């Protein structure tokens, strides 16, 4: 099979680039140092297209398309930033901040949080829409980790890494709409989970301070999701 037909030429923000046909717009853009904000996406995990921050304009498409799940195509004309897209992204980010209780200043992830970083990157200095202040629990029953639903953005990275990489399927999502909650097993305390292997991958991939190690408090929390792509390759390589 020749590599030739697998190359697509497209433009991103007017710049002509080439990409492999199996690449998403996001992958192609990042390869060419074009920044597209994401939250649910994480290299090494399946895509869910849920955070809506990577929406881009594709000429000819009726709607904005999520860059993470849209494959490149020949002649595609992609715009990753425009006043309209930026405005939408900012508002989406505001919705994230308003729906739960993200108190950055006292969060374990302060300074190491993808949501916080996004607010900086997108220039979101304040939230125009009213905060909801839901009452949400903290589950500290696990000996090593804590889940604080106040800080969860429902990106489902924990659910995916637990299912796709660790294979434990401990994490899931319950409820729906604004009542959605990530859970372990039958919503038991995490410490009582029968399936959790305590591998801690969920903590490492969590973009915010929702999942954290009990010892990483103060200003010390650092997440390390870099291991994922390697693990994925290892796993896939092992398969017959």
């Amino acid at each position, binding site marked *: 099979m020749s590599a030739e037909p697998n190359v697509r030429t497209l433009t991103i923000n007017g710049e002509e680039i080439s990409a492999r046909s199996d690449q998403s717009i996001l992958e192609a853009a990042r390869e060419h140092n074009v920044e597209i904000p994401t939250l649910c996406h994480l290299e090494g995990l399946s895509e869910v297209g849920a955070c*809506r921050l990577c*929406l881009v304009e594709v000429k000819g498409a009726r709607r904005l398309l999520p860059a993470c799940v849209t494959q490149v195509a020949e002649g595609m004309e992609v715009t990753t930033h425009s006043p309209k897209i930026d405005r939408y992204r900012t508002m989406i980010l505001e919705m*994230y901040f308003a729906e739960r209780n993200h108190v950055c200043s006292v969060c374990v992830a302060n300074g190491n949080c993808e949501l916080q970083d996004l607010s900086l990157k997108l220039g979101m200095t304040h939230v125009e*829409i009213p905060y*909801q202040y839901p009452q949400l629990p903290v589950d500290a029953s696990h000996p090593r980790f804590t889940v604080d639903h106040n800080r969860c953005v*429902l990106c489902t990275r924990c659910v995916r890494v637990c299912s796709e990489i660790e294979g434990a399927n401990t994490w899931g999502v319950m*409820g729906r709409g*604004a009542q959605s909650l990530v859970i372990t097993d039958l919503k038991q305390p995490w410490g009582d989970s029968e399936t959790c292997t305590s591998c801690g991958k969920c903590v490492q991939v969590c973009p915010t301070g929702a999942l954290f190690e009990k010892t990483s408090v103060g200003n010390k929390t650092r997440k390390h999701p870099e291991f994922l792509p390697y693990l994925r390759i290892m796993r896939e390589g092992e398969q017959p």
Partner: protein
Amino acid sequence: MNTEELQQIAAGGQEERDKFDYEVNVCMGTSCLSQHSDRIRDAIAKEAEACGKKCQVRRTGCMGPCAAGPMILVEPAGKLYGHVREGDAKDIVEALGGEPVARLDPELGSYFEGQNFVVLENVGHIDPEKIDEYIARGGYQALLKALTEMNPASVIEQISKSGLRGRGGGGYPTGLKWDTVAKVKGAQKYVICNGDEGDPGAFMDRSVLESDPQRVIEGMAIAAYAIGASKGYIYVRAEYPLAVQRLTMALREARRRGFLGNSICETQFNFDIDIRLGAGAFVCGEETALIASIEGKRGTPRPRPPYPAVSGLWADPTLINNVETFANVPPIIRHGGEWFSSMGTARSKGTKVFALTGKIQRTGLVEVPMGMTLRQIIFGIGGGVPDGRKFKAVQTGGPSGGCMPEEHLDLSISYDALISAGSMMGSGGMIVMDDTSCMVSVARFFMEFCMTESCGKCVPCRAGTVQMFELLTKITKGEATHRDLDRLTELCEVVGATSLCGLGQTAPNPVLSTLRYFKHEYLAHIDEKRCPAGVCELSPAAVEVHA
């Protein structure tokens, strides 16, 4: 099964019916049944037997004007009775062959004028639990024709030619959809019938499934043949127990008669259908969510593409159409695509079933050709607004649709006209409102619906609907400012443009359409702290926070 056998069954049925002088057809739809139409039927049968008249008392499906139920259709006179009680049995039987019972006149006026039954052609005439009666009315001729006289491509050609568009709301050309799935390579393909009637306030699909289930099965079988599927699913709402029961029976009957299973009609074609129950999630009306639900998972949509046509149920090519769409298929194949396309408007062909409800004289199920005006339906068929009140708006398209004011009453119904008027066809709910309805509250009602039905996967829908709902609540309480109104408009734009699936994308529509036509009502709440319809309780001491 071949043509002859089919004709034999039809003839046998006719013979049976010819033995009687009269037919009393008693509606056994959910609505009439809840008023004990089964007991009424028994009472009439008893009376008929007692008086010795050759009278067949039959169960049929919904006849449409549910509010006048329990309904009875007496043949050959073609006389309809409404509001029938058990005690009326004797009079009904006595009146057979003579003057009808005057007090049981349902007073339907011009209810049936202009209606054109294609999907509902059999209702009132057949017993939904008896497949032979369906066959006697021409049922399964289309499937037989397709299997024996046509190849899949020509079936699709007829559907394309008919101009049929998806009746679930989107209006995607059915022929094109079939063609796409047919062209995708795949050893296993699926046909799914979406019976998760989405719109709250509509019951077209329920009615069809309860009254004429074989029609849907036949439509699905034809589709399966056309696209090369061997397995089908009907996804029905669990809230429709009668529909589920009738469907279950219908599937069994269809299998018994050989319209489902292996070597259907003595051809190579194998196809069978299973029922899957919905469990109370509006979002499962969305194709990818519905597929997830059939797979036994949470009904959350996923980004498209890939479309189900390419990667659907268990990642195989899958065709999804709704109940009414499939119900249109057998007559199209029977009479040809051109016959169908002769009805309707340039870009919206055929008929459409609507559930006409709300503040209207005559409520019920109606089927009208595309192109009829809203005024004809509401004031002609429906008889206008009761109690001397003033018409204010008509809502179509359910939570994804919009409210249209009086000045749009002369709009001819078509997919495109409704969209340009800020609403949409939807699956066929048509809710009439009079001047006692507050349009801000109506918008709030729909937003609450979307908020509680949001699956929660993507943030614009999950959080945006909550924000919009709270802003609308604030307006109805008289606590909102113009800045809130601006924010509401902005949220509408962002949620509509960025949500993952149709639920979120269309959730702002009821707000946008009411803002478009009834902005003065919003402003009255905000500026004058007053609800023009007198519905909202505004707090007089509301504090204007913003300058």
